[in-house]
């Protein structure tokens, strides 16, 4: 359980890091804008104005320039305009996309390794016999094998490497089982 806890703390940490990252995506000056949309007025076409101004300056008078109408019409023109203050955090977006793509890339690499490279390597190293042996692992059918599993889980294993290998094996068996129940037997999620 120590290992499990550490894994969760790492996950927790990564989530916190992500949160910090989103906050720390410092307010770039590019990241605020005031967008004014002014509908057609008399013979002037509808216009969109964007300015890099702060919230308090986000109104038609500050943003719309050059002003398409002259003095006395400014008020009438501006009344129709709608100004919206918007902000974003480009740092968050950049960080998110890069993080997403790197995780996706890693997963794809691992997928290629699992589906293509590993069977090939195994075949080259051990020949066919090993493959067949590892496939017919039917221990789960016996009623007492399950108890065996549960009890052996509580025993400590000697070293880290074994542990990782064991965890990986277990994960693989789980995925195998899931694949069987979803894609072959259609018991769940169909």
């Amino acid at each position, binding site marked *: 359980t120590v290992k499990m*806890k550490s894994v969760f703390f790492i996950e927790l940490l990564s989530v916190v890091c992500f949160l910090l990252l989103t906050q720390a995506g410092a307010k770039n000056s590019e990241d605020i804008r005031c967008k004014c949309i002014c509908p057609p007025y008399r013979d002037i076409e*509808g216009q969109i104005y964007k300015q890099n101004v702060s919230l308090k300056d986000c109104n038609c008078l500050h943003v719309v320039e050059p002003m398409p109408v002259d003095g006395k019409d400014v008020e009438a023109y501006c009344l129709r305009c709608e100004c919206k203050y918007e902000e974003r955090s480009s740092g968050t977006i950049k960080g998110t996309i890069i993080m997403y793509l790197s995780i996706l890339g890693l997963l794809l690499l691992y997928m290629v390794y699992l589906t293509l490279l590993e069977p090939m390597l195994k075949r080259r190293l051990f020949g066919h016999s090993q493959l067949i042996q590892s496939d017919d692992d039917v221990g789960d059918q016996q009623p*007492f094998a399950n108890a065996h599993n549960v009890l052996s889980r509580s025993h400590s294993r000697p070293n880290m490497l074994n542990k990782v290998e064991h965890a990986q094996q277990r994960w693989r068996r789980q995925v195998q089982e899931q694949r069987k129940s979803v894609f072959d037997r259609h018991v769940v999620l169909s």
Partner: protein
Amino acid sequence: MESEQLYNRGYCRNSYNSIASASSDEELLDGAGVIMDFHTTEDDNLLDGDAASPGSNYAMSNGGGVASSSTHLLDFLEEPIPGVGTYDDFHTIDWVREKCKDRERHRKINSKKKESAWEFTKSLYDAWSGWLVVTLTGLASGALAGLIDIAADWMNDLKEGVCLSAMWFNHEQCCWTSNETTFAERDKCPQWKSWAELILGQAEGPGSYIMNYFMYIYWALSFAFLAVCLVKVFAPYACGSGIPEIKTILSGFIIRGYLGKWTLMIKTITLVLAVASGLSLGKEGPLVHVACCCGNIFSYLFPKYSKNEAKKREVLSAASAAGVSVAFGAPIGGVLFSLEEVSYYFPLKTLWRSFFAALVAAFVLRSINPFGNSRLVLFYVEYHTPWYLFELIPFILLGVFGGLWGAFFIRANIAWCRRRKSTRFGKYPVLEVILVAAITAVVAFPNPYTRQNTSELIKELFTDCGPLESSQLCQYRSQMNGSKAFTETPNRPAGPGVYAAMWQLCLALIFKIIMTIFTFGLKVPSGLFIPSMAIGAIAGRIVGIAVEQLAYYHHDWFLFKEWCEVGADCITPGLYAMVGAAACLGGVTRMTVSLVVIVFELTGGLEYIVPLMAAVMTSKWVGDAFGREGIYEAHIRLNGYPFLDAKEEFTHTTLAREVMRPRRSDPPLAVLTQDDLTVEELQGIINETSYNGFPVIVSKESQRLVGFALRRDITIAIENARRKQEGIMLNSRVYFTQHAPTLPADSPRPLKLRSILDMSPFTVTDHTPMEIVVDIFRKLGLRQCLVTHNGIVLGIITKKNILEHLEELKQHSEPLAAPWYYHKKRYPSSHGSNGKPRSRVHHVQLVRSFQDGRAGGDDSDEEAVHLLDGSNL
């Protein structure tokens, strides 16, 4: 095959089943206070005396008043066996037992609290862990939702082009500061390059159109392919919407790995790919699954939740609220969704925690600000135009449409999914996804309303035509020529743009309807909310524009004359889209309260609650007329999950005896005796049968019930004893009693299995009406219940038996009159004078060696047999 085994299960209440240190189980059985010794008393005496004993057992062990510390006093020699009290994959949990376990843990902590400062801190930590875990869940699901939103927007725009100045920006962010000032150019900017511009160097013309078309299909296919491959290789459980499974899990079912780390990661990653691939699916349902994964993972940090399946489900309820909260930006709607749609057991404490989790999640998402509009949702409407009473008619019509669509969709989708489940066609999940994605992409591209992201489409349909809008939907002919054309926005005749848009919307509607049926259930993460809402919004917008034009051309009708003055704005097509979206979603999911709250939080349209309610209610009525279950219940039933719906009413008058196993034609019930089995015989029984639990009876002569032992616990206990205890051989005697039976001197050491025996199994008599049994199962969340007659165990009812029975009744519900009369006649006779159960001899299977001792047992319930013989079936 597997689903057969999903249900059969037993359980034990190992830790709190000792009643008091002084009492043995013989005393326990005697509820009236008369102490009887089973070894000396005749069975006939007991038959009268033990009528009250099951009841008193319940009161003692399930009422929570057990002084359970005595367990440890009694069994201080036995260390707890690891693994006992846990569940196998695809098994149902026992809510009663889990709640008792938690109360006992709580008592232990409370009693230790005053011992030291450290213990006090631990108790504080324990008390706060509930809030901590929902906070963490809220934080994580908010952050993940932000990630998914940002990444999905970016990938979706990747199908059209790329931002040259900064790769990581989507179209809108790319043109953040561009100076394209005219309406026509509002979506263009030099930094954003479409693929045709990049590859061919030209933005216009047929060549670039074909190039864009090709790139669109290429990206859609590669995203879909990646998604389904990742799902298949790493986490098959990450496919689908997840809500039916979460519903089942929350009702007390174990699906190992369904809420695990890999599922979380793959679901998050592939959800983005699936949404970006342009398939007709949404991210809202899967986000609930993602949030539940977070809840499950964080609950491992706290022993209070990691070791107790019932408590864990409280966290999952809160997590699903957080999931909807971030999916729609509707925190209150999320809480109500969890209450109305997902949760099974929802105490007030969970309500507050769900509320808090939804709050935290919404806060995090808001601070990430994924849409750049400082709002939680993409489609926030800002109009506040009033609606008029006569508009209720079109709203109700939209409700009817929503209900019809919902019923049709559920039928069609279930039929398709059944086909996928049962025929060879289901063997090619990757090919299916590719095919559907290809068809979607090829058909979707030419139509601008299907090409764009579904959320954007909904946003556009919800938005009212103001002077600021430049979309095709708003190209009305100006009735006054010249300068004052756009100054006011009354109802206007539709221009050519609107007519074109109507055609495109109709085509989009048909396309969406067809594609959604085939998309929901693909082996990629796929939600249903957004496509349903899109269909409703399209239909609503069409109706809205039609009503608007009607009002314009026939403003002298009395309906319009009263409310719509000429030149005044009286119909808001965007509102119709909103109502239609709610109606369609209501028709599909059959939600009511939560749906209205979600839609009004989503759009901010507080004034429109009455139209929304009218439409949603109508859609539920119409939908229910064609079939009572929503899409999630239908999928639960399709997959055969053991979900006992609390909403359905049980109206039949069958008795427990007719539902219990074994049936008349079946081999007799497998039971264990409390002190004369050997390890070998016990293993023999376990190997020969596939039952998940065995009733334990006193002896072959008196077949009175002692308790119930779980298959899983027995196997674990035997294996454990073999490893740890010396002298356990195959011919060791197994006993469930307090004291070891007297054995010959040369026999090997006996094995005590009392700690795994559940001494307070729920029992009902064979004449209990099924409505009561179903109620007990629903309200207490039992796994199984034993059926007794005069204290003698006759059979067992499991959750699966009840579900099978319900299914049977549903199929035979047409000839209502006959069974009703049949049961009515015999119903009042719960005293046993009608209907003849088999004598228990045939029910109870004793181990081979006991079969010869049957005669003695028969005598004992002579009275019962005699009574029951009075009538014939």
